[in-house]
Structure formats: structure tokens, C-alpha cells
């Protein structure tokens, strides 16, 4: 492979890696607050893209309105998911919660398919479509948007969880739910908030990446799987790890796309996932605690 | 059924057992012996490391260092099911019945370790497998009657009230034909009458030749039934001796001073209403 090709694949990998990292962060937020792994996480990304397509294409809103509007709508879906399906479960055990969230993800996918159809939809780039040449490879301005939005989210969430009272309250739930409720934290609200945040993060990722990858109703599943790979690789619950791991997986996947094994590209993230689960479930950055699942 | 001959032999020997969690020593250089056929109790304030000790002996946890011998054979670091096969079984302070099965089936699971029909033989329902199954059912019923739960055989295990669930755990553990029975706070939450009945049951078990090691807070039970008492505090041995000696030991009295509840019960008991 030529140096330029590698550089190009690296750039693609970083962009894709941002998305995987954001999906992973979404997993982590909900997992940290509740111990649940939300299989529907990928659908939030898909919904973000689809809503943006609808708001911009059909409704005709300009992009700077579409982005927050789409995020808001999907946040609403996340809230509905938590209230209608997650909270009412009387005896949450791991097997049921897995199947319920899978059911939710399939349901959402089915609803979108019926409403929107099976085709693939485009979305205009946020700014220019002219590629920027760096060292023989090309970056799209949209790639920079994705990178920028990812950075903003990571920094924003970091500040939120470290500096604000609400953020610290959610982290308290992660450490010890009972203790958190005993000091007056409304655990129920924190759980709701975690779903809302996760949905918002996913939606933002979805809107940002759709101009590059296009969107269709069935994109969610693979995104969820690959994002989960990043979450586990980074150490479940660890959000810096999630982003780093997202990059690792995105780059590995992209490089394999340029190799003779390109047909197996989709399997790369999953092989990484299985490898991590078998060898070191706590991932790269997780402590021993991450290897053991929380009870919820 | 049980070998009653080895009266004065050492059944279990714990040597310099050490277990840390983070910076805390849960079990700190603990050594003791349990002689065959005896009843030994481990007492100590809450957080003293008693359940950790049980978890180390039964194989749920691995020690950082130290040895555990059962009849001279090393068992530390062996997986729990191997230790059960060697002859140690236990009950659980938090109570873990198999709620998806009946009371009798719970005890029948206890027979698993002494029976052998594998997946193929049971799938084909060989004559041997069927015979073994009849034996399992019969023996399980025997142990259920032994603890006094015979009439409740077909009830769902999860529906039992607390005190009876404890008896079920004992029956289940007995069904494994243990040489050593570990009882984790068997009297927790029982009233005075129930505790007396429990004491009688433990004597019955001793008469069968089964050695018993208890972790317990209820001092009246401990002093009544124990041949020996071992006192633990902050993971370290404080004293060891007969119940009489322990009651008069100033160090033991000191560590229990400052406890509001004279019986030493600090934690909320699982069976209390």
C-alpha cells in the first residue's frame, strides 16, 4: 500500500472512529447510571440521521436548525424508551433487559422502515464539499465537522460529569445507587437523564456522519455492535477509553478495507470485540471492576 | 453413610491464611484446625472477616497466601465444585435457594455431586440412569425429613418463609454427604424457639458424624453447641478455646464492648420482620 493510501485510510478511519467513539460514550452513560447495556443505542444514531434528512429535505429547515431539532427529537425518543419500556420492568434481570432493548431496537428499526422506506438517504454537507488536500490524501470538511462535534461532545460531557452537580449525581448513581438515593439524589431522574443524554449524543453523531455515509433504516445494528466493541475495548464505563478505542477500531477497519481482506471489513470490529471479551474483558483502560458487570 | 471412626483426627487445617481487598486485610494470618466430628464456631464483630474466611475455605475466593488442608490434601485455589466433591459444603448467609425449582428438587441438586449419569445416559434414559434418579429422589426426601421440611417437598422453593429456607439450605448441603459442613449465620433472624430447634438439629448432624464449622453472631447458640470457639476481629485471631474460656477472655470481652446489642448482632438480620 502506498503512503498516500495509508494516510487516506487513516483519515477515513479517524472519522469513522469518532462515530464509534460517540456510540461507545452513549453506551457508557447508560451503563454507568443503570448497569444496563442499551442495545438500541445504534438506533439513536440512525434516527438522528433520518430525522435530519426529513427535517432538512422534506420540511425544508436550514441545517443549523435541523441539527439541534433532530437531536431534540431523538432525545425525546430516548426519554420515551426509558419511561415506557425500561422503567416499568418489575424484575429486571440481565437476560430480560437484553431482550427488551433488542426488541426496542428492532421495533424502532421497523417503525422507521415503514415510515421512511428502505432506501438510502443523503444529507447535504454542513459546509463546503471541497476536499482539503493534506500530504497526498483528501479530507472532507465534513470530516472536520465530525471531529469537531466529537471533540465538543467529549469536552462538554467531561465538564458536565466533573463540574456540574447533576453530572456528579449521575456518577454517584454509577458508584452506588443506594447510597446515592440515601443522600437525596433522585435516581429515577438520573436514569432518565442518562437515556436522554445517550440519545442526544447518538443523534448528534448520526446527523454529523450522514452527509458522508448516507443513512438508511438498518444502519443502527452494525453501529451498535461496533460502538459496543469500542466501549468494551476502552473499558466499559470509561469514556476517554471509549474515544481512544473508537479510533483504534475505526482505523483498523479502514486499513482492512484497503487490504486484500476488504470483504471482511465489517468483521474487524467484531473480532476485536470477541478478542477483548475473551482475553481482557476490562479492556485497555478499565480496572478490574469493568470486567465484572454491575448489578442494577 | 458417614464415616464416624475418625474422632480425633484433624479434618480441616487452615494455615496462615491471608486475603487483602485493596488496602484492607480481610483475613490476616489466620490459622486454626477443625477436628473431625466436632462443632467449631467462628465469632467476631461485623466486618471481622468471617464470611471472607468461609469464601476462602469453600473456594469462592482465592487467598493471597496461606494453605487450607482437608484431610491432609490442599484445597486452597481449587474451584468450588471440586472442594464440594472433596467433602465440604455450605449454606449462605444471604440465602441462595434455587427459586425455579421445588423444595425437593433443591435438595436433589445436592445429590448431584455423588451421582454420575451424564447427558447421554439421561437423554437415553438408561436403566442405570433411572435407577440413580430413584435413589436421588429417595435420599433427598430423607434429608428433607431430617431437617423437618418433609411436608413441603413440592412447594416452590422461593415461597418458603425465611426460617424454613434456611433449613432447606441445610438439607441441600447435607445431601452432598459432606465431611465438613460450613454454616454461614444459620441463626440470623431466628427467634429464640427457632434457634433452640436449630441447636438440636446441629446436634443431630453431629451425631451423624458430620463436622461443622459455623459463623455465628447468636452467642447463646454458639456457647450451647460449640466444642470450640475461634474469635476473629479485623481479620486477625483474637482468641481460641472452649466456650467457657472465650466467655472469660478479657480481649474478647473488650472487642464486644461498645456494641449496643449484647448478642453481638449488628447487621439487620435477613429473617427479621
Amino acid at each position, binding site marked *: 500500500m502506498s503512503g498516500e493510501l495509508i494516510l487516506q485510510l487513516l483519515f477515513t478511519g479517524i472519522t469513522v472512529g469518532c462515530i464509534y467513539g460517540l456510540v461507545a460514550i452513549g453506551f457508557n452513560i447508560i451503563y454507568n447510571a443503570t448497569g444496563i*447495556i442499551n442495545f438500541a443505542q445504534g438506533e439513536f444514531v440512525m434516527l438522528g440521521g433520518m430525522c435530519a434528512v426529513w427535517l432538512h429535505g422534506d420540511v425544508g429547515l436550514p441545517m443549523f436548525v435541523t441539527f439541534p431539532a433532530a437531536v431534540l427529537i431523538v432525545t425525546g425518543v430516548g426519554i420515551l424508551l426509558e419511561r415506557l*419500556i425500561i422503567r*416499568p420492568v418489575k424484575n429486571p434481570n*440481565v*437476560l*430480560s433487559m*437484553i*431482550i*427488551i432493548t*433488542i*426488541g*426496542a431496537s*428492532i*421495533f424502532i*428499526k*421497523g*417503525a422507521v*422502515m*415503514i415510515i421512511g422506506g428502505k432506501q438510502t438517504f443523503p444529507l447535504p454537507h454542513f459546509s463546503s464539499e471541497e476536499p482539503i488536500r493534506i500530504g497526498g490524501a483528501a479530507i472532507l470538511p465534513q470530516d472536520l465537522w465530525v471531529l469537531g462535534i466529537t471533540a465538543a461532545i467529549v469536552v462538554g460531557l467531561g465538564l458536565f460529569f466533573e463540574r456540574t452537580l447533576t453530572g456528579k449525581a449521575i456518577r454517584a448513581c454509577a458508584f452506588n445507587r443506594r447510597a446515592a438515593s440515601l443522600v437525596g439524589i433522585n435516581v429515577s431522574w438520573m436514569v432518565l437523564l442518562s437515556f436522554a443524554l445517550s440519545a442526544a449524543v447518538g443523534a448528534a453523531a448520526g446527523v454529523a456522519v450522514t452527509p458522508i455515509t448516507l443513512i438508511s433504516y438498518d444502519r443502527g*445494528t*452494525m453501529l451498535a*455492535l461496533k460502538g459496543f466493541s469500542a466501549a*468494551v475495548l476502552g473499558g466499559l464505563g470509561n469514556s476517554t477509553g471509549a474515544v481512544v478505542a473508537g479510533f483504534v477500531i475505526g482505523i483498523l477497519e479502514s486499513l482492512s478495507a484497503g487490504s486484500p481482506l476488504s470483504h471482511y471489513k*465489517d*468483521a474487524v470490529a*467484531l*473480532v476485536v*470485540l*470477541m478478542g477483548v*471479551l*475473551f482475553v481482557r*474483558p476490562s479492556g485497555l483502560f478499565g480496572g478490574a471492576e469493568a470486567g465484572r*458487570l454491575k448489578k442494577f | 453413610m458417614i464415616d464416624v471412626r475418625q474422632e480425633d483426627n484433624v479434618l480441616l487445617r487452615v494455615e496462615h491464611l491471608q486475603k487483602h481487598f485493596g488496602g484492607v486485610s480481610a483475613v490476616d494470618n489466620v490459622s486454626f484446625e477443625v477436628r473431625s466430628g466436632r462443632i467449631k464456631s467462628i465469632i467476631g464483630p461485623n466486618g471481622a472477616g468471617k464470611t471472607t474466611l468461609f469464601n476462602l475455605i469453600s473456594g469462592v475466593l482465592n487467598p493471597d497466601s496461606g494453605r487450607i488442608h482437608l484431610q491432609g490434601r490442599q484445597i486452597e485455589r481449587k474451584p*468450588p*465444585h471440586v472442594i464440594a*466433591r472433596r467433602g465440604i*459444603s455450605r449454606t*449462605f448467609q444471604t440465602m*441462595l*435457594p*434455587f*427459586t*425455579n*425449582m421445588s423444595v425437593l*428438587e433443591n435438595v*436433589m*441438586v445436592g445429590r*448431584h*455431586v455423588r*451421582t454420575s*449419569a451424564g*447427558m447421554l445416559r*439421561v*437423554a*437415553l*434414559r438408561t436403566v442405570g*440412569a433411572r435407577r*440413580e*434418579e430413584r435413589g436421588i429422589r429417595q435420599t433427598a426426601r430423607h434429608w428433607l425429613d431430617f431437617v423437618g421440611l418433609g411436608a413441603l417437598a413440592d412447594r416452590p422453593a422461593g415461597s418458603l418463609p425465611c426460617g424454613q429456607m434456611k433449613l432447606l439450605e441445610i438439607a441441600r*448441603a447435607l445431601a452432598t454427604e459432606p465431611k465438613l459442613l460450613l454454616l454461614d449465620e444459620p441463626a440470623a433472624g431466628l427467634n429464640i424457639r427457632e434457634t433452640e430447634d436449630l441447636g438440636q438439629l446441629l446436634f443431630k448432624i453431629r451425631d451423624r458424624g458430620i463436622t461443622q464449622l459455623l459463623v455465628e453472631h447468636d452467642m447463646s447458640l454458639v456457647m450451647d453447641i460449640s466444642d470450640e470457639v475461634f474469635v476473629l476481629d479485623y481479620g486477625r485471631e483474637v482468641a481460641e478455646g472452649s466456650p467457657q474460656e472465650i466467655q472469660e477472655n478479657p480481649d474478647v470481652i473488650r472487642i464486644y464492648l461498645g456494641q449496643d446489642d449484647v448478642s453481638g448482632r449488628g447487621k439487620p438480620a435477613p429473617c427479621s420482620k
Partner: protein
Amino acid sequence: MGKLNGLAILILIAILAILPKLLTNPYHISLMIFVGIYCLITLGLSLLMGYAGQISLGHAAFYGIGAYATGILTTKWGLPVELAMVLAVLIAAGLALIVGIPALRLRGHYLGMATLAFGVIVYVFFEAAVDFTGGPTGLAGIPFLKVGRFQFDSDLKFYYGVWVLVVLVLILALNIVHSRIGRALRSIHSAETATSAMGVDASKYKIQVFVLSACTASLAGGLYAHYMMYISPTSFGFRFSITLVTMVAMGGMSNLWGAMAGTCLLTILPETSSVFEDYFLLIYGGILIVIMMFVPQGFLVGLGQLIQRLYTGSKRQKRVTVG
């Protein structure tokens, strides 16, 4: 296994025997063949998920491995069908062992994700290894199923062949459930720590039942391959894995008869109207959510409870009006 089960099996055999006489439309016989093939998978999956309490979100992979193994062995390597089928099951069993030993050390979500990942990896392999599997265009020219001189070259013969196997597997599964192994599996599901302390080697049994479920799934895959005589990767993806889980969940996780009922329903119902095809995802998603939230013991038991509640409700009303 109990007299009730024995009676139920006899009734099942009787129904299966006369069913072809009643079904005039050959399409319906074909449908029943599919029900049978899928039951082979779901019986094994019910043992794994319902009784042992483990999760497999990628079981379509074993179904596919059975199909592709026998398909490739017969078409590309010219092996006789009987041998290819046996080898296919052995290959699936071997893979289940390799994947199962590390995977079943995981619990809960991790196990679910590992099996899901495994399922997708196998699917990607079916699509990508074009020289081996034929890729997205599939593998054609798979010969008839035969045993010795006897060829299963008609739907009727296949129907009886498949259902004989299903009844056999059902009997074996029922025997396992009502034995010390069945109790061991259920105890692992209920309280793995406690059952280990009673001497049950949980890992061994989880792996055994995982391999067993892979064997029945791959057997089903082989039968499918020799029935359709053409296979392609789309039948063996995530969507089918979820269909399988839905079938087992519908019938109540730890209920072999329920698994068969769920399989029957979810195979036949989609065929009753084309609407189902469009709303497939919506309906399956909805079923999974509703079942796991409200009737985790399965729709049969749930239906029975509902009827009971309605019955006692109406009795109470009568009493009020009289008193």
C-alpha cells in the same frame, strides 16, 4: 419425564401422522417442513437459554454452518450426503466448543454481545469468502437428502423425515430436563454460586448444552440445505438469530413445548398475510418487548393466567350480585 409429557408426545405423533392427509395444499406441507426444521433449532436453544439461562444472540451462525458445511462438502468435495451431514454437525460442534469455552466464562451482557459478534462474523464470512461459499449469490446444486438407497426427493418424505427427528430430539430434551442434568442446568440459571458450592461444575454443563444446541441447529441447517438445494447468506444473519430468540421467548423460555408452539406460530403467521413482511420488524420487536415485560413465562402460560383471572373475576361478580 412424566405421564403428561408422554401422553402429549403420543398426541403430537398422531397429529403429525395424519396432518399430511388433511393438508391438501402442498405449500402447507412445505411450511410444516420449515416448522420442523426450525423446531430442531429452538429445542436446543430453549435448553440453552431457558434452562441453563445462557444467552445466544448468534445461533443462526450454527444453522448456517450446518447448511454451508454439508452444502460445500457435497457439491465441491463430492462427499456422500450422509457423511457430509455427520461432518457438518461435527464441525459445528467443534466450533461451538472453541467459541463456547472462552465465551461461556462471560456473563450477561458480555455473553450476549460475544454471541452476537460471533453470529455476525460468521455471516460476514459466508458473504465474503466467495471462493468457498459462493458469496452473496449463494451455493446451488445441493443434492437431495438420502440415507443409503432411500432418497428424500419429495416433500412428503422430507416432512416425515424431519418430524421423526424433531420428535426424537424432543424426547431426548425432555429426558434431559427431567434428570439430574436438567436440575443442574436450572440451578446454574438460578444461583450459579450456590450450585457450584453443591459440586455442580457449571462451566462444563454450560459448554455441553451450548454444544448440544449447536448440534441441533447445524442438523437443522443441513436439512435445510438438502431441502432447498440452494442456500445464501441472508438466511443465516442477525435477523434469523433474533427470530429464533423470539420463538423461544414467546413460548416461555424454559418450556420445550412452548418453544415448539412459538416456532409454529412465528413460522406460520408471517405466511398468512403479506402485511406481516413489511411489519415484520415492528411485530417481532413488539413481541419481544411485550413478552419480556409482561409474560416472561411465555404467551401460553400468560394466556392461561389471563383466562384464569377472567374466570375468577366473573365468579366474583356473580357472588356480589347474589349476596
